[in-house]
C-alpha cells in the first residue's frame, strides 16, 4: 500500500459540500481494511482541516498518502494565513464570523482536535500567503 495517494480540490464557496474529501478518504481507508481507530482519527483530523480551508481560507487542496507506516495528510491553501499560531492552537479560540457559527462551526476546537487525534502535526503559515497543515496518523504495517 506504501505508495497510494489520494488528491482533492476543496471548494471554498460551498458549505454544502464541506466534508466530501474526508468522507471519500474514510471510505477508501475502510475498503483497505485499516483499523477502525486509525480510520476514526484520520476522519476527525481530515474533517477539521477540510472545514478550516472552507471557512477560513476560501478552499484549497488536500492530499492523503499511505506512507511508511503512517497515513499522511497534507492540506494546502492560499488563504490569509494564521497570524498567531500559538493563539490559534488554543481551545476555544476562533475568528469565525457569526454566520459561520450559526451553522455549528467555529467552536475553536478544530486545530486542538487535529493535534490531539494525530501522532504528529506541523503547520506552515505566513500571513497573506496561505497555510499548509501536515498530519500523520501512525498505522504499522502500511
Amino acid at each position, binding site marked *: 500500500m506504501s505508495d497510494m495517494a489520494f488528491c482533492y480540490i476543496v471548494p471554498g464557496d460551498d458549505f454544502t459540500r464541506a466534508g*466530501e474529501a474526508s*468522507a471519500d478518504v474514510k471510505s477508501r481507508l475502510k475498503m483497505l481494511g485499516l483499523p477502525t481507530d486509525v480510520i476514526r482519527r484520520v*476522519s476527525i483530523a481530515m474533517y477539521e482541516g477540510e472545514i478550516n480551508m472552507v471557512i477560513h481560507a476560501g478552499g484549497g487542496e488536500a492530499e492523503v498518502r499511505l506512507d511508511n507506516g503512517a497515513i499522511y495528510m497534507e492540506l494546502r491553501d492560499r488563504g490569509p494565513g494564521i497570524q498567531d499560531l500559538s493563539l490559534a492552537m488554543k481551545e476555544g479560540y476562533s475568528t469565525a464570523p457569526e454566520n459561520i457559527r450559526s451553522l455549528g462551526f467555529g467552536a475553536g476546537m478544530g486545530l486542538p482536535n487535529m493535534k490531539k487525534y494525530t501522532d504528529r502535526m506541523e503547520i506552515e503559515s505566513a500571513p497573506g500567503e496561505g497555510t499548509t497543515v501536515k498530519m500523520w496518523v501512525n498505522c504499522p504495517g502500511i
Partner: protein
Amino acid sequence: MALETLLQDPNFTLVSGPSDCSLSRVFCCDLLSVAMSRAPEGGIWITVMNNLNTLAVASLCEVHAVVLAENVIPQEDVIQRAKLEGISLISTPLPIFEAALAAQNCLD
C-alpha cells in the same frame, strides 16, 4: 434498542429513513467539532442544527439516527441527504434534554 421503540412515543415523528435501525447510544450536541470527535457509531444524535453539515458529520461518524428537537423542521436538502446516507431523520417538539431522556429510557 431499535428506533421503533422510540417511534411509539407520539412526540417522535420519522421524517425519512428506516424505522427499525438499531441504536447504540444517545448523544446530544450542537457544535460540529464536538460531535465529530464524540458522536457514537450506531448512535442517535439529538440536535437543533438543521443543515447539511449536521448530516455530513452524522455520516462520517456513522450515527444511525438524527433527531431534530424543538420542532425544528428539516430542510428539504437535509431530508434528501439523510435518505442518500441511509440515516433515519426524526423530528420532535421536545427540547433536547427531554428528547434525550426519552431516547435513553428506550435504551435501558
